[in-house]
């Protein structure tokens, strides 16, 4: 289960006045088991790139092999591909449509041809996994739920088909800080227990620094970095010209360093930052 991208380019509305190049000569590989973050400023081609993975956008030029399926081929088994690559779009709660939560979550598994008994189990499992009480919500209308709950239902709707890869396009956009944290922890939980590979688009560098193993940086249709968050955020010039900012913890660390507090974060998390500061401050006191 890997995603191999080679020399991929994509142009919107080619040969019209609206022609717009979205991706240019992109090459990288995502291996099974990775949690990959994709970052880049608005319009850098992130969403266009990930929508290639389950053939929502047709390959124009270059090679793309997903889970052994060659997307340049004439005949593609879309059902299998889209079952294996679960995709959660931005503001997924706006895509709910059924009259009950259970039915909405069952939409994917039903389309992918799971059997009736299997579907009931999958739905129950998915709703429980996203942290909702199955018995309580299953007969509710999705539109009665709160924003965060709706988003959980939408996530359940994707993972109920048991994808091998989960692609998330800004999963925390528009949520309050607590809601953001909960969704991220949910994704982390899913990654360790349910899906093998997670690919996440985000504007929030702190999320990327904390939750991913590798970061792919797009800048104006080109891939400029594919490296660990550690390498990326320790390199002070890596994000020059991209319009992206470093994670808050990194910026705080750098500021403290400039002002004479010699700390070096092992992990880019708030807890790690607090620990380091405490260590240094107590060392000075003694």
């Amino acid at each position: 289960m890997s995603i191999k991208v080679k020399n991929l380019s994509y142009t919107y509305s080619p040969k019209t006045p609206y022609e717009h190049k979205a991706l240019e000569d992109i090459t990288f590989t995502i291996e099974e088991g990775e949690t990959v973050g994709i970052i880049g400023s608005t319009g850098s081609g992130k969403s266009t790139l990930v929508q290639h993975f389950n053939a929502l956008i047709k390959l124009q030029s270059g090679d793309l092999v997903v889970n052994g399926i060659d997307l340049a081929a004439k005949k593609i088994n879309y059902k299998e591909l889209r079952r294996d690559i679960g995709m959660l779009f931005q503001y997924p709660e706006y895509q709910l449509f059924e009259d009950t939560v259970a039915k909405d979550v069952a939409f994917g598994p039903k389309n992918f041809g799971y059997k009736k008994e299997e579907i009931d189990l999958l739905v129950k499992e998915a709703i429980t996994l996203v942290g909702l009480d199955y018995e309580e919500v299953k007969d509710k209308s999705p539109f009665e739920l709160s924003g965060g709950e709706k988003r959980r239902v939408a996530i359940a709707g994707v993972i109920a088909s048991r994808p091998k890869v989960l692609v998330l396009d800004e999963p925390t956009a528009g949520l309050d800080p607590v809601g953001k944290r909960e969704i991220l922890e949910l994704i982390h939980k899913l990654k360790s227990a349910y899906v093998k590979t997670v690919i996440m688009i985000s504007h929030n560098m702190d999320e990327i620094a904390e939750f991913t193993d590798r970061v792919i940086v797009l800048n104006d249709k080109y891939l400029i970095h594919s490296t660990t968050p550690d390498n990326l955020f320790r390199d002070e010039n890596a994000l020059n010209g991209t319009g992206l900012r470093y994670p808050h913890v990194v910026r705080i660390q750098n500021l403290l360093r400039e002002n004479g507090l010699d700390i070096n974060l092992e992990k880019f998390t708030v807890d790690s930052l607090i620990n380091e500061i405490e260590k240094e401050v107590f060392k000075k006191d003694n």
Partner: protein
Amino acid sequence: MARDLTLGQYYPVESFVHKLDPRVKFIIMTMYIVGVFLVKHMYGFIVVAAFAILSTLISRVPILSVLKSLKGILFIVIFTAILNVFFHKEGRVYFTIGKLLVTEGGVFFAVKMALRLILLVLGTTLLTYTTTPMALTDGLERLMTPLSWIKIPVHDIAIIMSISLRFIPILMEEVQKIMKAQRARGAEFDKGGLIKRAKALLPILIPLFISAFRRADELALALDARCYNATPNRTRYKKLKFTYRDLIALLSGISYIVLIVAINHRFWIPDLIYSIPFV
């Protein structure tokens, strides 16, 4: 993408036609349509077609993309042509199919009606290709101003029109987004019979309606928050100006109508050309 929408899409190039005052374009469009329905003779049709083709060439919109707008009406054109061929009986009989007669007059009538439909759509498409929705409603509002003297809420109508036009691309984009999301969950929209396809639309339509109402609510709030009440004496950001270009366009529109009426009534036109058989 919503950008692929062909019918009635603004085509952004600079040209004589693009720069015309929208009011003038509306007037010329009206003249053009009147012309399309006035013409009787085949020579008249040549004038109408020439007018449409010349305007397209001047507008620098590729003829092909204007022709694409005909795809949508192809069925209606063929359908009406077939009906006209069979139900208009006049002149020499070409052949019969059972009780149905195919006559010379019927064939001409069918061809003329088909040409009328095609020319009608070509001309009106050019208007939306060369005028932004905002300019369109602005022009329409100014042209309808006299109606406000008899208490018709012209400005309200104009603002409703411009809002609806403004929301078409937004909703199209929304449809694309929802379709992608549902396809990612295994939905298929192009498989199965009519009923299955209609049912497959539900997962798009319901979220679309919900979002349309949400947007309408938000827009109404935003208008209210800025004390918008559609008063008639608002000032304008873009003032419409009547220039020499508009004069030239209007004059050519007038000569177009005069020419068609002249051909219809055989004024000034040598009798000779009417003796050519296909007229």
